[in-house]
């Protein structure tokens, strides 16, 4: 039976992707992978945005998704640039190695 694919289907897909990314972000120690996990979260958000847009019959959802893409690209460019710098400094991509961010 070909059931209708509705709002909830897309939302559940989006949430699943988002949560997967979140778990990865929290669990992984590799800085690059943490970034990658945020990209997965972005995918979830893109799906959700489009779903809401469709649900309300608007194109704003898709426009929002496009802006998300832009932000993701910017984040990737700058974040990865910083990661490379950090790697050159310490020779490691371990997020746990960066403990200098605290007040002594």
């Amino acid at each position: 039976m070909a059931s209708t694919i509705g709002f909830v289907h897309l939302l559940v897909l989006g949430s699943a992707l988002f949560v997967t990314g979140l778990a990865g972000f929290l669990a992984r120690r590799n800085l690059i992978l943490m970034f990658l996990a945020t990209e997965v979260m972005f995918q979830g958000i893109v799906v959700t945005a489009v779903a809401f847009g469709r649900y309300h019959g608007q194109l704003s959802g898709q426009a929002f998704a496009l802006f998300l893409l832009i932000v993701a690209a910017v984040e990737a460019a700058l974040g990865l640039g910083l990661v490379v710098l950090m790697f050159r400094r310490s020779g490691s991509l371990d997020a746990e190695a960066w403990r200098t961010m605290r007040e002594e």
Partner: protein
Amino acid sequence: MIASSLIFYVLAALGALSVYCLMPSAGYRLTRGRRALGTILGAAALAGLIVWLIGLRQVKALMPADEPLVGPFFYLFAAVAIASAVRVVVHPRPVYSALYFVLTVLAVAGVLLLAGGEFLAIVLIIIYAGAIMVTYVFVIMLAQQAHSGDLAGSASYDVRTRPAFVPLLLGFLLLAALGGPLSSRANWPKPESPASVNAAPALAKPLIEDQGAASDAAGPVMTAAPQGNGPDTDAPAPGSIESIGEELMHRHVLAIELAGVLLLVAIVGAVALARRRVEPADLLVGPIPDPRSPAPGKEAAHG
């Protein structure tokens, strides 16, 4: 309805358990048996989720209901997207993670294609799979030593993640909080009346003038979408380049400008970062030892 929510919670818990098993966590060694268990649990959760989704009644279709293949394709893409996303976050080798992420992007693009976002789907593939992932892969290559087939050459922070229990517990809770209420129809937001928003040509012009005309010309969104693709109507389909362009240029001009500024800032920032030299004084003397790894020196030598 309560039962439906319960099923979702169970499925979410199964999924979380599966990812927990698959995660190369610091607490245990990732054995073959554990991996198999995780895979089986994950497959079961995914299958259960799809069945659960099929069983859900919907008031309003977001995808063309009269096309027989739309349903199967959606479930296929959804399953691939979730599965590959899980692989992204659990794979011990970053390069593979990146490649799985490309798969995730492709699957999401497929879903978007079905949901009427043709332009967005293409852009997603071009920008994510094409541009962003290339950057990722470059950086991974730059920061990673080439290694042979086994995991012996991998860095300690890839082989051993943080303890995965709390992250997955949080993930499960979030998923339950997000998805649980969805199974109750009472929690769905009210869709806006199609009059104000649905048809793309209406959006291109001031809303107030065209409200009457738009409500006459276009029916509900979902029926309008396939019609828009036909050659006999001059109204562009929602999701086509034309309609998206009109949407962006008419309703989100300021955001577009800001996005342009943001990109410019990113370019300048990236150039500034790239030109930055690491002074010898800034170098940390070797990698900082991980208090949790038993023999930091040995592993750091590989990284």
